[in-house]
């Protein structure tokens, strides 16, 4: 219960803090809109047979990863720069729980982007996104926020030894957009890319959201999405313990 309380309060605290940030809040909403706009023009000028609804939905979800990739990857580096990392590590509360709450808060910022992109698509391009199964649609969105937050948590832990973790997070932005099939069908990618997309939670989250919007059973995809989130969290916790033990032994937590 204490863990859940810490997770919930940490999430709320960081979500409110990130919402005030020009970089993590405003830009995270605006940045995917540029790509969404380009994608709308590209599909409109092309001879693709599908409508623009799936494109608008994919472009909207791209923002969840944008909001998470850089902010979550550099979460520990940010604490280190602010001088609070040692305090967090020494605190009786579990560092993994605290870090997970930060990463989930960053992915939740992406909800703003989903709403902004769908409004943008509707008002400027006249693209209507239907919601065939509202419950499945909402579950898909919750699933993708959780799985992306969890993936961000794993990245935050994996990049803890890097002083420039933000650069590693930033470089992952386009590959995830591409490999997870947000705008491009995975079947269009080379065959060797597909297994990579299967182990990425956002792939299943996107499928679930599309099923919720355009019809189909998205619940197995939501389940897969949450299962992969659990795997990311488990791997992240194990890795964090190892990294913290090493940092304590070698006195390298601050990387100075």
């Amino acid at each position, binding site marked *: 219960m204490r863990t859940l309380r810490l997770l919930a309060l940490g999430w709320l605290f960081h979500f409110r803090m990130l919402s005030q940030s*020009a970089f993590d809040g405003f830009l995270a909403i605006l940045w995917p809109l*540029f790509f969404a706009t380009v994608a709308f*023009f590209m599909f409109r000028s*092309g001879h*693709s047979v599908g409508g623009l609804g799936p494109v608008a939905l994919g472009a909207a979800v791209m923002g969840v990863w944008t909001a998470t990739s850089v902010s979550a990857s550099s979460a520990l580096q940010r604490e280190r720069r602010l001088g609070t990392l040692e305090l967090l590590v020494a605190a009786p509360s579990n560092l993994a729980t605290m870090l997970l709450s930060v990463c989930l808060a960053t992915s939740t910022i992406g909800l703003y982007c989903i709403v902004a992109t769908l409004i943008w698509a509707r008002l400027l391009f006249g693209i209507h996104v239907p919601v065939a199964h509202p419950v499945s649609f909402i579950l898909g969105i919750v699933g993708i926020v959780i799985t992306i937050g969890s993936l961000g948590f794993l990245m935050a832990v994996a990049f803890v030894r890097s002083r420039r973790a933000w650069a590693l997070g*930033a470089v992952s932005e386009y590959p995830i957009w591409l490999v997870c099939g947000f705008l491009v069908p995975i079947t269009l990618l080379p065959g060797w890319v597909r297994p990579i997309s299967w182990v990425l939670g956002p792939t299943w989250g996107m499928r679930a959201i599309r099923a919720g919007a355009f019809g189909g059973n998205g619940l197995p995809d939501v389940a897969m999405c949450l299962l992969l989130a659990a795997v990311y969290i488990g791997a992240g916790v194990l890795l964090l313990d190892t990294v913290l033990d090493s940092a304590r032994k070698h006195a390298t937590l601050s990387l100075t």
Partner: protein
Amino acid sequence: MNSLRVFFVGGLISYRALFGWLTPAVYIPALILTPIFQILLFAYIGRAAGSQGDEFYVIGNSIQYASVPCIFVMSQTIADERFFQTLGPILISPAHRVPLFLGRALPVILNALFVAAFALFAGGLILSITFSASSWMRLVPVLAVAMFSCTGLGLITGAIGLRIRETSVLSNVLVGLLLIFCGANVALSSLPHWMAEIGRALPLTHAIAAARAVTNGATLGQVQGLLGKEAALGIVYTIAGFGLIRFMERQSRLHATLERV
């Protein structure tokens, strides 16, 4: 002679001092890998949309992505002096302002030129597009003019950075606007008329069109009109940026806001 020294040596020293953090661990992901991923992203979106061929996106995105080093680095070259509290000593130095600030642009242009050329080479290689040696000979001056004009826009953001804190947000917004308007991924003819007109007033648009033309066999003479417009835009943006820097400098003296971060 002193101005030349300030331009070349001062520009290089300031670049090295401000971007000591631009180690391979940052440079490779941010300026080598990301443009390649951007090319792949749009090439595949193009395939899914059935709009243009891969070459269109390789050329457009390799040049457009170079706006990142042009705009970000140029704006930080000036705004970060304030952050490090070194702007005051620079502005009270007797050095002439033109070489002092424009000298900082030269390493930025050279770096952006490398970023664009490498992205063009690597993106082409991955998507099986080969540019002939003669195409490369014609592309290099086109890229150089593009980087010059975009760095002029970066000079403007650098000047604005003397007044606002969030230069990285401003730079990102400009890079995003270039992505939409400069014809990197959507031909100007496919944009609404007013958007195409804005695109023609922005850096990179004419250079991207020129680059596409020279890779299709056009000579530099045949694209001199496009290159002339791009260079003229670069000069206008550079003059505007320099003028804005002087204005902001005077304002910061008047209101004692030079060191406010």
